[in-house]
């Protein structure tokens, strides 16, 4: 491995990886710091984890975030798969340009704009037809579905592009109708991409601050919102503990996903 990389390249890579992981590692290390002064090491302690455990606000927010993330990821999966399929398989239809733009714009649109526009929509809707009633878990979920759909669509599109269509043709040839072909042949074989898409939408929802801030209400404070208001006041060791737990959860999730997506599933 080393001999194809010049010393310069190798150094740059090491620097880059250190750059990427130094903050994360420092977070983890100092979550075990007995001292409140996050940057002075005062001995190993699980004190902050204990405090975190007792922190009701964070726990409630975590529950809400999880609830939203699961619903939003599932909704995004359905919409994103349909959108990705349409974009990949239907080269021409009326409104395709618009549809394509709508399905991919959320990927690059600044979140403040998306968040503001959705909130204004909800307010206008509430004025006009009385729904949705105020901002709540529902409105945040709707917002996250809209954002997640774009990401899932990209993943699904990429997977379908590499899909062997002769398998679908063979199924048609043998008498299966197109819907059946999709359910029995296509879907099972693109399943890993669907799982990846779901996880992606899930992470995005769980992590989102800006859109949630715009579209949530008093009863639907999400975890990032709690974290944000907490860190605005300065460094907080409980947050370090939370961060470490978060990292652990993500690491487990990624390992699980990697195990699920192992290559032996398809030829």
């Amino acid at each position, binding site marked *: 491995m080393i001999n194809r990389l010049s010393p310069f390249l190798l150094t740059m890579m090491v620097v*880059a990886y250190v750059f*990427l992981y130094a903050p994360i590692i420092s977070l983890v290390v100092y979550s075990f710091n007995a001292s409140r002064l996050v940057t002075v090491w005062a001995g190993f302690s699980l004190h902050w984890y204990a405090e975190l455990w007792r922190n009701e606000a964070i726990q409630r927010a975590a529950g809400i975030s999880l609830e939203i993330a699961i619903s939003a990821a599932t909704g995004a999966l359905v919409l994103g798969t349909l959108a990705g399929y349409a974009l990949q398989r239907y080269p021409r239809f009326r409104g395709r340009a618009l549809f394509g733009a709508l399905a*991919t714009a959320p990927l690059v649109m600044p979140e403040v704009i998306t968040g503001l526009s959705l909130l204004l929509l909800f307010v206008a809707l509430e004025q006009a037809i009385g729904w949705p009633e105020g901002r709540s878990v529902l409105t945040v979920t709707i917002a996250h579905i809209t954002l997640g759909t774009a990401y899932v669509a990209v993943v699904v599109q990429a997977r379908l592009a590499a899909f062997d269509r002769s398998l679908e043709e063979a199924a048609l040839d043998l008498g299966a109708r197109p819907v059946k072909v999709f359910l029995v042949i296509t879907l099972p074989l693109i399943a890993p991409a669907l799982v990846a898409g779901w996880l992606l939408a899930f992470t995005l929802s769980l992590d989102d601050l800006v859109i949630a801030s715009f579209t949530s209400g008093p009863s639907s404070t999400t975890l990032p919102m709690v974290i944000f208001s907490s860190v605005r006041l300065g460094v907080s060791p409980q947050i370090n503990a939370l*961060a470490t737990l978060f990292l652990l959860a993500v690491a487990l999730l990624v390992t699980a996903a990697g195990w699920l997506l192992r290559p032996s599933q398809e030829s």
Partner: protein
Amino acid sequence: MSDAVRRRAVLVLPFTWLLLFFLAPFFIVLKISLAESAIGIPPYTPLFSTDASGWHLYLSLGGYEFLISDSLYFRAYLDALKFAAVSTVFCLLVGYPLAYGIVRAARRWRGALLLLVILPFWTSFLIRVYAWIGLLKGNGLINNTLLALGLIDQPLTLLNNAFAVYVGIVYSYLPFMVLPLYAQLEKLDPALLEAAADLGCRPWQAFARVTLPLSLPGIAAGALLVFIPAVGEFVIPDLLGGPDTLMIGKVLWDEFFANRDWPVASAVAIAMLVVLIVPMAFIRRLLQEEAA
């Protein structure tokens, strides 16, 4: 079910959803940007009303006038563009060697190396930005280390300034730069570089004359994927920036949450959109060409 019916069935759900929850909101933002701030719920004047003499349309360009008149907004826009652009360049400088190195690495390491680049992305964005506070502040890790090593006498101001914002943006958006670059560099035929060497090029020349030009699409894609969202960044300038690093995303937030001035916030959003529409269309074209 015929082809056309089937097609419609697939499209109806996502298309309707996106029309309602993505496109329609922008029109509402436009409408509100043309209203005036008011007391009440909602805190803006209605677009039209009916009374004895018929329909009245209320349009106010007050929000936009405000934007133009107060140089704060203009500067915030320019600063946002500047920060985004400079960060994009730095991101490229850090990301290109990384992507190039991963491509050059032995095949069995590539997956792991890429995963290591993406992994931080899967952990909370907010938390990672927060982590930099601990590293960059006056008595933070970096300063303490430098002091302890005797390299400096006094703590450096690394936080709440432009430097911190640059670091934050480069850090958060690095995967968006590395992935398209990697995808493009991976397609490069190593035989091309061998041919260049065979014809007398030294490694640096071969890089400049062969690799770099051929990786331009990847560079463009990565740059746009970093630049466009960075312009509207809020969290990074808020947590890591200071009074002299006002970015337009933060302005929008403050107008909305602090000043409760919805029309002005909407006007800011519309102005941002107008500025970003061109690069966004550009990147859509690029992504389409990639897929084709």
